[in-house]
């Protein structure tokens, strides 16, 4: 089976969780199918050697599509401005893109799409396998031209980033892609429901394939601190609940709980988070690591005590899966997909920092039940391999051809 995959081939600072997922998927797919991967060229050097690299074609993408600050990883749309903002910089809001910036992004997308189509016309394939919005236009064009089935794998949507159904060109592009696709892969039932409800897509077309996890190869990290580390890993943005993590930390700090807090990742909320920590007198117990590579993150996880993911909406939440795999107890927001594969995770149904704080205390104080929590999740992950996930994907391909 010849598969044309359009999406990132390797993780980078721009594509984070999706990049990690696509990297694993491409690796496994290249063992099971005749895979050709069309991947955007990135500015980063030193990309990993992966099994599929010889099958990878890099397509140029303009700076507008690579500008982290402008696109907020892969966000192109706006959020509602928060009118109460004591800081001179924008903290929990993103600045609305001007019409000119929007047009630049669209032009860049058109150019990337053209590049994809030109390359796509040079090869034979049985099926198009596209990932997220950047791939949609090219996937549709190739589907129509060569009359091949298209499977669209959705990692994140405009809805997730904005928190609402919008009228943006990006929403419309996603809807077009979801409508044209012969099959859709959602990363969780949580996300499948969002697709059905907010994009009016029939349930029958949507297949849930949870992300897998690989045995963590890490250099164990012995924390230099006496206090246990409570870890957040992900983009420092409103969608990931970054400020809720800091608020929970503040509650625990005021209670003089003996804990350290580490936020691994980067994002536009960093100055606001730092300012908050400084004003709340927490900076001596709070740490920001900046961007970490996958292996550095696993290493950090191995020396941490608890993992917290207070996302406002997370289609999956791969970092939580990885944390559980390393052996951390996890506290998750109810609004995430990964809870479907972590039966023992502490689930917080209301986005209230007080509740996160309570759960952190619970896990630190109840050693036995925390050990049981870790064990149960690890058991559940035994079959959650990328090999199994991709086997499901291949079945979806077979049913689509």
């Amino acid at each position, binding site marked *: 089976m010849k598969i044309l995959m359009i999406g990132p081939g390797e993780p980078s600072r721009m594509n984070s969780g999706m990049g990690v997922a696509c990297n694993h998927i491409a690796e496994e797919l290249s063992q099971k199918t005749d895979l050709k991967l069309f991947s955007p060229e990135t500015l980063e050097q030193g990309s990993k050697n992966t099994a599929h690299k010889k099958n990878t074609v890099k397509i140029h993408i303009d700076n507008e599509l690579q500008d982290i600050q402008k696109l907020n990883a892969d966000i192109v749309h706006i959020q509602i401005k928060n009118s109460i903002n004591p800081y001179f*910089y924008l903290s929990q809001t993103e600045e609305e893109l001007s019409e000119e910036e929007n047009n630049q992004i669209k032009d860049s997308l058109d150019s990337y799409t053209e590049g994809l189509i030109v390359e796509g016309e040079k090869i034979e394939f049985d099926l198009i396998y596209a990932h997220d919005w950047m791939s949609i236009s090219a996937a549709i064009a190739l589907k129509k031209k060569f009359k091949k089935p298209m499977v669209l794998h959705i990692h994140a949507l405009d809805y997730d980033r904005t928190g609402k159904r919008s009228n943006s060109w990006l929403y419309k592009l996603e809807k077009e892609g979801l409508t044209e696709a012969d099959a859709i892969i959602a990363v969780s039932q949580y996300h499948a429901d969002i697709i059905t409800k907010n994009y009016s897509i029939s349930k029958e077309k949507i297949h849930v394939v949870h992300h897998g996890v690989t045995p963590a190869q890490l250099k164990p990290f012995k924390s230099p601190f006496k206090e246990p580390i409570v870890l957040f890993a992900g983009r420092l943005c409103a969608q990931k609940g970054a400020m809720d993590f800091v608020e929970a930390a503040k509650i625990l700090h005021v209670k003089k709980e003996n804990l350290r807090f580490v936020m691994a990742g980067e994002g536009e909320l960093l*100055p606001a988070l730092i*300012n908050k920590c*400084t004003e709340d007198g927490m*900076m*001596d117990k709070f*740490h920001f*690591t*900046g961007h970490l590579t996958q292996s550095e993150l696993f290493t950090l996880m191995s020396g941490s005590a608890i993992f917290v993911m207070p996302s406002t909406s997370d289609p999956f939440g791969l970092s939580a899966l990885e944390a559980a795999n390393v052996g951390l107890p996890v506290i998750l927001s109810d609004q995430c997909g990964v809870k479907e594969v972590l039966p023992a995770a502490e689930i917080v149904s209301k986005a209230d920092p007080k509740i996160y704080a309570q759960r952190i205390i619970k896990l630190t104080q109840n050693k036995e039940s925390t050990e049981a929590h870790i064990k149960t999740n690890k058991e559940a992950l035994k079959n959650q391999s990328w090999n199994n996930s991709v086997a499901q994907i291949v079945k979806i391909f077979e049913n689509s051809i």
Partner: protein
Amino acid sequence: MDNYQIIHFHHPLKLKNLSFLEISKKAKHIDKEASVDAFNLQYQDNIQPRLRTLLKMADTQRNPLVFFSISFLEQLESTDPDMLLELQENVNKEKISLIGSCAYHSFSYLCSHELFKEEAMLHKKLLKKFFQPSPEIFINTACLFDDEIANIVQQLGYNSIVATANTWHLAGKHSGQLYRANTTDDFNILLANGDDKEGFQISLINGYGSAYASNQIDDQIKNDVKINQLFISTSGKEQPVYAVSMPLTSPSWQYKIPDYTNNPLQKALLQQIADLFKNKGNIKDPEDLKVLMLLCQPDHLMSINQFSKDNGYNKFISSMNILTDLSLKYNN
């Protein structure tokens, strides 16, 4: 008309990037190699010619006034010991006058007054390794001045300071005049380098490594009266008081104070340095004290800027990791 000129020579030292995972792994914080490379790269074409100008001014009895930071002297000793010898000879023969300041040309005063005192004390102490005469006059980094600085500098044995004269603040006072400090007796302030171009000026020049806007050494300027004599000649008379409650810097410095202190990253860093210095009263290791001072260097603070995107954030994170590293060392 410019009557005087203080030429500043500084060698900014680079700090290593320290990741969170390297904390407590006995990592070195100062990037000696990169610092040496940076100096050597500039030495032939930029630094040496300026030092030659200085020596020429000394030879022709111009009595140049010079600030050398300790890092500059240490590096010069390594790179061109002969040049250092020549400078030493001229200083020891009083053909070049030294002016006291902060050892690493830092903004430690904007972080912690105690740290500033340490740094100014260090400058005076380490200068003795290189030169016989000791400076009697002080000028802070960027000519930064307020009432409290006068207090601190006097405790260090200085009896006078060069301070910024800005016409908007002077309210009838003039640069080139001598004033008394508001907070302590027997301490003179020479107002200089103001924004009144018609008045008396002491030009503050970037010889190398400083952020004074002008790097043009005027080798014709002759200090007819040695600057410390300028202070002596008018002492004993009733001097008016010059009171400055908030720090002022020279308009000759490239950037304003808020550019170094006002964004959240800079504020957080300065606060943490101050807290660490205050709470860990036993930081006596000179290398560790030096690191705290280097974190306050103007170009380091400037680099921690959210608007420099990735680099600013990374530098901040690394700086905080360094502070955590030091904190854990003294905890243990």
